[in-house]
């Protein structure tokens, strides 16, 4: 952060004027800048999961130590994916370059770099596609928008494919639904074939494969960490919320991103889950288990390749089957829910060993999840609140003026809009939505999704998060909003530095942290502090 200019200077320096001197194809070689680019994948991590070409390299090097036949590998990989994914093939062919997507991308808004216009990001691949796979492109060459693959083009691919968070905002506005996330997913998959990855993705992937979670937390340590939260909760509420682990025959398996076990403020959300489950166990006998093996909701394999996504995701159903639970409950996480909602059942299903999810407390049958058999925690909690099954005192959140950040993936890959808002409105008294063009299906990314939440690309993250921060600033100034709620573990890691930089005075919270602060646990002491140990506002007597 210390390398960054102050926010006024940062903002004033963003320049959206488009270069007139040169055609975009003539701007190579690309200047790979520190502060924007991420470090290369650790060879040990690549080796552990069998990813190609493990070696120590850096994107700032001249020589990227590519396999000799890298062009052939890319060409054949491209061809294979055109056949395997209609999305890819159609999106290569039908863009008319109308420009509707251009200023919809948070990275273009925040950097002003024209190659961050989604259309141009896609053209980086399309230009090679035209050269390699269309006769007209081959014939006309550059005037037909085609160019052959080269080292310079490859560097450009790498640079800009890791400046996209696969948020799908452009896809909402595209008249053909062209989804840059698809383009980036394929592009990164191709880059992975020749060993071009970033460490912030590769090492969590390897960790997750081995220990069950991105952070590499081993089973005993995972249990320790939750027990540490249990102690904290007991200090605050006087109630022991000890969870169960790997319990065979439990009703429900709970899976959440490991980020919430590891770092503030996600930890408070995690404490929120523990308290909610304790309440439900005590009151209604809910039998829920955690697993140290399936201890990751997120899936950085999704940012690597479809195959890696499937390999990491397999643990969820495998563990549910081994434990013999009825269905799976999923915690607050963004891309985790895109994977669960749109990929999991197809990849690793059918989950015919599970039952259609029924909330045992309310009897609600989650028909919308009847095949995948996994329910989002805000669906679950909203259902409990609707049936008046929770004992809530929202006034304990009265010091919070809350706005809600729709995470990209639950928004544009699921349609989860009302559930979290309903929960928030029931656990706190002051809620204000951000301007309409910045929320729901038009929501802006935190700027750090899809594996870009590293430390070395802080300038990129602050740029990408600018539109989100700017919308928060609006409600911060209008309504005194001081709390940014979200349902994503990456958000909880990414938004605090973003707020600190752009909108100081706004804290970040998970929805279930607020739920827990409002929740009256049976047998609790008079609550004096919230989960963060901060004194509650004194009730006016």
């Amino acid at each position, binding site marked *: 952060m210390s390398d960054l200019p102050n926010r006024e200077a940062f903002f004033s320096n963003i320049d959206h004027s488009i270069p007139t001197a040169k055609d975009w194809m003539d701007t190579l070689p690309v200047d790979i800048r520190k502060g924007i680019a991420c470090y290369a994948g650790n060879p040990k991590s690549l080796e552990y999961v069998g990813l190609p070409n493990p070696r120590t390299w850096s994107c700032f090097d001249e020589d990227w130590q590519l396999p000799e036949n890298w062009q052939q590998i890319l060409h054949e990989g491209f061809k294979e994916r055109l056949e395997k994914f*209609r999305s890819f093939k159609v999106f290569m062919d*039908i863009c*008319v*370059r109308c420009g509707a997507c251009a200023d919809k991308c948070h990275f273009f808004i925040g950097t002003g770099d024209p190659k961050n216009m989604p259309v141009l990001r896609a053209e980086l691949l399309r230009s090679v596609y035209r050269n390699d796979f269309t006769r007209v492109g081959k014939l006309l060459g550059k005037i037909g928008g085609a160019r052959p693959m080269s080292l310079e083009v490859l560097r450009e691919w790498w640079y800009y494919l890791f400046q996209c968070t696969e948020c*799908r905002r452009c896809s909402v506005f595209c008249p053909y*639904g062209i989804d840059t996330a698809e383009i980036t997913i394929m592009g990164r998959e191709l880059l992975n074939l020749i060993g071009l990855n970033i460490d912030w993705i590769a090492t969590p992937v390897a960790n997750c494969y081995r220990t069950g979670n991105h952070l590499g937390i081993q089973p005993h340590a995972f249990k320790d960490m939750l027990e540490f939260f249990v102690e904290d909760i007991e200090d605050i509420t006087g109630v022991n919320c000890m969870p169960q682990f790997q319990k065979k025959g439990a009703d429900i398996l709970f899976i959440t991103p490991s980020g919430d076990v590891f770092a503030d403020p996600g930890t408070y959300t995690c404490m929120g889950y523990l308290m909610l489950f304790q309440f439900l166990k005590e009151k209604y006998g809910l039998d829920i288990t955690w697993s140290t093996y399936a201890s990751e909701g997120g899936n950085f394999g999704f940012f690597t390749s479809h195959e890696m996504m499937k390999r990491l995701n397999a643990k969820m159903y495998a563990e549910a089957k081994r434990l013999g639970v009825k269905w799976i409950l999923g915690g607050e996480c963004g891309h985790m829910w895109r994977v669960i909602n749109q990929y999991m059942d197809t*990849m690793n299903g059918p989950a015919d060993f599970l039952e259609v999810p029924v909330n045992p407390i309310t009897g609600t049958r989650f028909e919308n999840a009847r095949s995948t058999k996994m329910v989002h925690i805000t669906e679950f909690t909203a259902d409990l609140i609707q049936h008046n099954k929770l004992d809530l005192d929202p006034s304990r959140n009265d010091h919070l003026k809350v706005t809600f950040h729709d995470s990209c993936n639950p928004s544009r890959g699921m349609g989860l809009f009302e559930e979290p808002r309903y929960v928030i409105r029931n656990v706190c008294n002051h809620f204000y939505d951000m301007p309409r063009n910045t929320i729901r299906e038009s929501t802006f990314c935190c700027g750090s999704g899809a594996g870009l939440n590293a430390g070395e690309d802080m300038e990129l993250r602050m740029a990408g998060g600018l539109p989100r921060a700017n919308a928060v600033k609006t409600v911060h100034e209008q309504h005194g909003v001081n709390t940014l709620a979200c349902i994503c573990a990456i958000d909880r890691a990414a938004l605090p530095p973003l707020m600190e930089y752009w909108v100081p005075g706004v804290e970040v919270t998970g929805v279930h942290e607020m739920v827990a602060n409002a929740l009256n646990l049976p047998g609790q002491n008079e609550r004096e502090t919230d989960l963060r140990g901060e004194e509650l506002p004194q009730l006016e007597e």
Partner: protein
Amino acid sequence: MNNKYMISFIAVFVLFFLAYLGTEALGLDVLFGVLIPYAALAVFIVGFVYKVMGWARSAVPFRIPTTCGQQENQLGFRQNTLDCPSTAGAVVLRMFLEIVTFRSLFRNTRMNFREGHKVSYNLEIFLWLFALIFHYAFLTVIVRHLRFFLEPVPKALQLLETVDSFMQIGLPVLYLSGAALLVAAVFLLLRRIFIGNVRYISLASDFFPLFLIGGIAFTGILMRYVTKVDIVSIKQLTMGLVTLHPTVPEGIGGLFYGHLFFVSILLAYFPFSKLMHLGGIFLSPTRNLPTDTRATRHVNPWNYPVETHTYEEYEDEFREKMVEAGLPVEIMPEEQPAEEAEADSPSEEKE
């Protein structure tokens, strides 16, 4: 200097003179009036079908609709069935409105940096509006031209012509669709030339069809209102084409052949260009799939087994630690030979 539109403009100009001079000076009426149109139509049909079949041959491994509204739920929140359609019927409606009204484009906003470091997003309706005018005007023009291929001219067509010329401007009366097509093409063209980021992303293949369609509209308007070509002869030619008894009447003139050559080029060019968005929109997986992925399993035709890290492997590696921490295990350590093989592991507890 942006030479992309100059190249396209010159190309269209050259094409016109090829046909004009070819017929006026060299008398190649049969070539431009019969052979090329037939060939172009054949290329169009075969190329179009081939392209669409090519897309259709590619698999749809995952159900990845872009959800733009509230999902289906059992909690009483109103589902946005149009933007998050979970049934086939709703998907058809979503697609229909997308294709007929360009709904996604209607969402378009324009981002601005305002004073006080505020970013604003305002409705930007003109791209949508002119795109809509462009496409509907083009459609009307095409339908109106059916009168050259049908004898007798159906009542419905005559009605369309009446509506299209309701403003009763000039003689012969001005068809709004022709004028609108030209105006919209010019708008879309100027947009590409004068809006910085649109110019930056534009290829020659974005300018060429605009000049070509503009050229078609322009030559059409010239023939109708200025040079007053011999309609009877032209209809003789077009009827000949459509009944597969081609005849080439005298005295049709180079302007018409230029017009017809433009249309032929457009047809032949179509399958190899971005104009295929006409077919592609129907196959776009982010729009044409239902959002019922958790309710109905989507099958991936090429789903293949992958290597995973099984629970057994996991427990084998961490068994001692798990037992020590009081976590349940499948196999107690005594039951197996002590083996402390620490696998080669990635760096731990990375922040």
